[in-house]
């Protein structure tokens, strides 16, 4: 296809991506270099019959004027990245010199907002992914063996948790797990503790979120594994049967090696998808104990009156760096595939 024709075919799509994906990233970076203007204070002398006193109050007029002149705020360089809500260099330095043990230091470190969010995000990613892969594989093997006429409805049932949006999915589970819901009551009954609630401690909330993550992500692993199972070559399996291999041995030595590339694909996608976890935190109303990086950005942008563009931009940039690290293996994989295709 000549360059000219290619250009006109691709132009609309390319323009859309450039304007609304490429540009926002740059804009986000630009925002992160600025900080909201401080409110201008002024001294006012207030007199009443009992005498005069001076008060400091916000000069609304001057502040609005400044905001109009510099809507993005003043230039702050990389300052926002280092402040307490982000990488918190000063606080870390201070904690390092002041704390007597490593445990104390990590404790201080993990109470800083950014590191707290990073810890949750990573814990969520790495706790959800392995069970998802294992369960997805088992469910796929299992569905693969049932009668053909039942397969369609079964697959439909299994993929439901994946279809609904995470917010709705987490709400549906939350209403059951709630202390007044069916599962919540059951758990209380099981542990014989009428006050037990999954919201009572941060560990329990984290576990609930992770269970939700597994519930939501397993269907994706299932679908991909199920499709891959259809491509497992039959000849080696027949040969193995003739040689007397048991069912377990056949799965272990023929099916699983065949599915290795698929499994790495699922793991990478799962890690990347869960790195942006946001809606479950809102759905489970777990903001108090579990914040993710995406949630930090969401929180900065949520209030309509005072959006912290600088802070959100900085967290966005740091999140993108995290995504980039997770994305590298995917890119290398795609690169290799293209090489072999050509």
């Amino acid at each position: 296809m000549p360059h000219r024709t290619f250009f006109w075919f691709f132009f609309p799509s390319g323009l859309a991506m450039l304007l609304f994906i490429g540009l926002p990233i740059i804009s986000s970076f630009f925002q992160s270099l600025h900080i909201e203007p401080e409110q201008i204070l002024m001294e006012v002398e207030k007199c009443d019959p009992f005498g005069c006193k001076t008060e400091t109050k916000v000069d609304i007029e001057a502040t609005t004027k400044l905001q109009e002149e510099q809507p993005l705020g003043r230039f702050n360089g990389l300052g926002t990245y280092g402040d307490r809500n982000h990488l918190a260099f000063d606080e870390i330095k201070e904690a390092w010199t002041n704390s007597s043990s490593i445990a104390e230091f990590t404790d201080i470190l993990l109470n800083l907002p950014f590191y707290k969010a990073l810890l949750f995000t990573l814990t969520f990613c790495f706790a959800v992914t392995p069970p998802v892969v294992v369960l997805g594989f088992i469910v796929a093997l299992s569905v693969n063996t049932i009668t053909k006429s039942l397969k369609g409805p079964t697959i439909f049932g299994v993929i439901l948790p994946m279809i609904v949006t995470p917010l709705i999915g987490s709400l549906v589970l939350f209403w059951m797990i709630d202390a007044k819901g069916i599962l919540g009551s059951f758990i209380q009954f099981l542990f014989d503790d009428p006050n037990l609630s999954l919201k009572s401690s941060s560990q329990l909330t984290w576990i609930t979120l992770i269970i939700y993550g597994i519930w939501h992500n397993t269907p994706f692993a299932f679908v991909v594994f199920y499709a891959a199972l259809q491509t497992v070559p039959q000849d080696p399996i027949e040969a193995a049967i003739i040689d007397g291999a048991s069912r377990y041995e056949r799965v272990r030595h023929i099916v699983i090696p065949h599915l290795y590339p698929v499994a790495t694909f699922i793991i990478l996608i799962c890690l990347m998808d869960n790195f942006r976890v946001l809606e479950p935190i809102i759905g489970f109303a777990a903001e108090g104990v579990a914040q993710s990086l995406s949630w930090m950005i969401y929180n900065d942008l949520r209030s309509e009156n005072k959006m912290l563009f600088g802070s959100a931009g900085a967290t966005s940039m740091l999140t993108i760096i995290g995504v980039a690290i997770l994305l590298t293996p995917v890119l290398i994989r795609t690169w290799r595939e293209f090489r072999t295709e050509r």
Partner: protein
Amino acid sequence: MESKINRYSKQLILLNSFFILAWLIISVFPFIWTFWGSFKVKADFFSRADWMFAVTGVNTLIETGDTSTVKAYVESWTEGEFWKATMNTIIITVSVVTISLFLGTLGAYALSRSTYKYTFWILIAALIFRAMPHITLVSGYLFPFFQLNVWGILPTTIIVLVAINQPFTLWLLYSFFKTVPKELDESALIDGCSYFQAFRFVIMPVMWPGVVTAGLFSMMLAYNDFTVTSLLLNQQNYTMVPKINAYLGTIEHSGNYMWAVSSVVSATAPLFMIIMFFQRQLISGLTAGAVKG
């Protein structure tokens, strides 16, 4: 072809059936429970006394005179203005699907037919774009959108969702067009068609299976989106998902938790219907290679 020796033993079949049944309950039961509970009052669905109330509807009987009620549905659709959210969702979903398929088919066709190296780099860029968390993009939109005064309205959100959706659509349709034999449109070119004519008269008639799959994913993205719609739309223009979230949060509706429950059912039901019809396309799309990112 199943060989005789590969038959499953009775125990294995039994174990397998149990497992599948258990798993089906785990994935489907929450939805059935919510559906059932949406016809009860709050005192039953979130019962302090006994969870069985949610099944039998004791308080519902006391409060409304029947064991099930559609009160929450009626109220959320009228008073809660869920009809408006539904309209907005329909407008956004239909527009996003149409526009992103139009752009996507053209772009992906060009990518699949060009032999130059830059197609590879475009696809890699699309993959990177696909991996960007939506919230980071939203943080980049807000400020310029406020300055341009386009924040809060539906068209902006539609364009944003189309753009966010493009990388995935491109990859999906790219791998689909790769399976359409090149000879088909090449012969049309030899017969004197322009590239656009070849696309219009030769490719378009055969591209519908791929387009349906891509359309299904665009639909799910637009229908399910929370991040973009909740931050880029103003309250009056909310779609279903942010609306449900708003029911949960605002103080004025705090007593009306059941609005959220019934709205969840209202929002999920159509989606399940569509998936029931297009299950095959959904699965073929998910497995179309290293696409979903």
